[in-house]
C-alpha cells in the first residue's frame, strides 16, 4: 500500500515506488528532507512489517546518541507535517528538528509540545521517547476540514484544526499533546485494550501524564495545578471550562450544545454503554480522580511520587491488556509499596484514593 506523503493534489512521490529496504537506506543517509520523506513514506504504509521497519530504522538512525542507560545522551528528533486540511498522512514536512519557529501556531505548538513531552519523560521518568529507545516523534497538523479531534494512530500524532465554534485547534493545549503521545507509551508498554475498563484505563493514563506534562512545564505542584484536560481547547463560553476535570469529574462543561460532562468520579456511577468503545472517555473519570486524590494527598510535585507509581504500574509485567480498574489499582499499590514502603505515606495515599472512588 502506498499512501501519498505530500497531499493528494501532488503526484506520487518517488518514494511510493521505492522498496522499503532502499527507503531505510535513504532514511539513514539522505539529506534531512530526504530522511523525513523516507520515514514519512515508511510511516504511511499500514502493514505491521513496515511499521516494524520504521521503528527499527528510527532506532538505527541515532545509535550514537540514543541510549537508556543513565548518564548517556538521549536525542530528540521531531518532524511536523501538515495535512493541508486533507486526510492523507503524514502530509507535507513543515518543520524538522532544529528548524526555527514559523508563522503557523499549530506547527509551533506541535513542535514545542512534542519537545516538552519528550523532556518530561526523560527528566522525570528517565524514559527515552515513546518506545524508550529514542523513537523520533512525528505529528501531523491541519488534518481534515474543521476536524474536531486528535488521535494516535500507532505511529504518529494527528491534530485537527477544530471547527472554531466549539473547538479551537487541538494543538493549543499541552496536555492534549501529552495525552496523545502517552497513548504511544501505553501501546509500547502494556497494550491496554481500547475497550471497556482497560480502554478507560488507557484513556486515564493519557490524561494523567498529559496533566503531569503540563504541570512539569509550568512547574506547578499538585496543589497549584488545575487538573483540567483541554482547558484551552474549548471556544470560551458560559459553562465551558475544559473537556475533563480530574479534580471534579462531571463538572468540566455544562453547555446547551456540548451537553453536560458525563464523567463519574465513583464506581457507583460507572456508565455501561456501547458507545465510545464502552465509554472509555466517560469512565476514565474514575481512575483520573483516584490519581488526583493520591497526588494531592502525597503533596508536592505530582510527577515525583504519584506519577512514578502510576508509571511503574504501567510498566509492570503483571498488567494485562484487558486489565480492570481493580487490577490496575492493585498494581499501583504493590508498586507504591516497593518504591516507598508498605506503610509509607505514598502507599497509604494510593490505597485510600482507590478506596475513595470505590475501586478497592
Amino acid at each position, binding site marked *: 500500500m502506498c499512501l501519498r506523503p505530500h497531499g493528494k493534489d501532488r503526484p506520487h512521490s518517488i518514494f511510493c515506488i521505492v522498496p522499503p529496504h532502499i527507503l531505510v537506506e535513504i532514511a539513514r543517509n539522505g539529506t534531512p528532507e530526504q530522511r523525513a520523506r523516507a520515514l514519512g513514506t515508511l510511516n504511511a504504509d499500514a502493514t505491521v512489517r513496515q511499521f516494524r521497519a520504521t521503528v527499527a530504522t528510527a532506532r538505527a538512525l541515532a545509535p550514537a546518541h540514543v541510549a537508556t542507560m543513565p548518564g548517556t545522551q538521549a536525542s530528540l528528533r521531531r518532524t511536523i507535517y501538515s495535512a493541508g486540511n486533507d486526510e492523507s498522512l503524514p502530509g507535507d514536512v513543515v518543520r524538522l528538528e532544529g528548524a526555527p519557529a514559523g508563522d503557523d501556531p499549530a506547527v509551533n505548538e506541535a513542535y514545542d509540545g512534542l519537545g516538552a513531552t519528550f523532556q518530561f519523560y526523560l527528566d522525570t521518568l528517565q524514559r527515552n521517547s515513546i518506545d524508550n529507545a529514542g523513537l523520533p516523534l512525528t505529528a501531523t497538523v491541519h488534518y481534515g476540514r474543521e476536524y474536531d*479531534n486528535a*488521535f494516535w*494512530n500507532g505511529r504518529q500524532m494527528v491534530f485537527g484544526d477544530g471547527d472554531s465554534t466549539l*473547538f479551537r485547534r487541538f494543538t493549543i493545549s499541552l496536555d492534549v499533546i501529552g495525552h496523545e503521545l502517552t497513548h504511544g507509551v501505553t501501546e509500547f508498554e502494556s497494550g491496554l485494550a481500547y475497550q471497556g475498563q482497560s480502554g478507560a484505563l488507557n484513556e486515564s493514563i493519557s490524561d494523567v501524564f498529559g496533566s503531569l506534562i503540563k504541570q512539569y512545564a509550568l512547574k506547578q505542584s499538585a496543589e497549584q495545578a488545575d487538573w483540567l484536560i483541554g482547558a484551552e481547547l474549548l471556544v470560551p463560553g458560559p459553562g465551558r471550562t475544559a473537556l475533563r476535570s480530574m479534580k471534579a469529574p462531571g463538572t468540566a462543561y455544562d453547555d446547551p*450544545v456540548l451537553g453536560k460532562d458525563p464523567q463519574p468520579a465513583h464506581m457507583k456511577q460507572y456508565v455501561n454503554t456501547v458507545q*465510545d468503545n464502552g465509554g472509555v472517555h466517560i469512565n476514565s473519570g474514575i481512575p483520573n480522580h483516584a490519581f488526583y486524590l493520591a497526588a494531592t494527598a502525597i503533596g508536592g510535585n505530582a510527577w515525583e511520587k504519584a506519577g512514578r507509581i502510576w508509571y511503574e504500574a504501567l510498566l509492570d509485567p503483571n498488567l494485562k491488556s484487558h486489565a480492570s480498574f481493580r487490577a490496575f489499582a492493585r498494581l499501583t499499590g504493590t508498586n507504591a509499596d516497593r518504591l516507598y514502603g508498605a506503610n509509607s505515606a505514598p502507599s497509604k495515599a494510593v490505597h485510600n484514593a482507590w478506596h475513595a472512588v470505590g475501586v478497592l
Partner: protein
Amino acid sequence: MQVVLHIDGGFAAMPGLAGPFVVSDQAVAPGERGKLDALVQAALDDRGSCGGPAQNCPDGRTYRLSIERDGGQEELVAGDPAVPPAFSALAQFVRQHGQRLA
C-alpha cells in the same frame, strides 16, 4: 433519499455531539440534489475501501453512514485514520447540509 451520519468516539467525545446528522434530498436546495446523488453513488461504489470501525487508533473516531434510497438501506462504516475519500466527501456534505438530531 436520506443519509444519516453517526460519529462515535474521539478525544473530544461529548454527549451533546453524539446525535447523528441527517440529510434528505428533499431538504437540500435543488441545486445540491445532484451533488448529493453523486456523492452517495461514489461512496457506495467505493464501499470496498471502507475498513470498518477505528482499530488500534486511540481517540480515533468511527463513522457510520446509513443510506436509504429506492426502498433499501445500506450502511458504510469507516474509522480514523483510514476514511476513504469518497466516504469522507459524503460525510462532509451531510455535516454541512444536514441537521443534527438530539
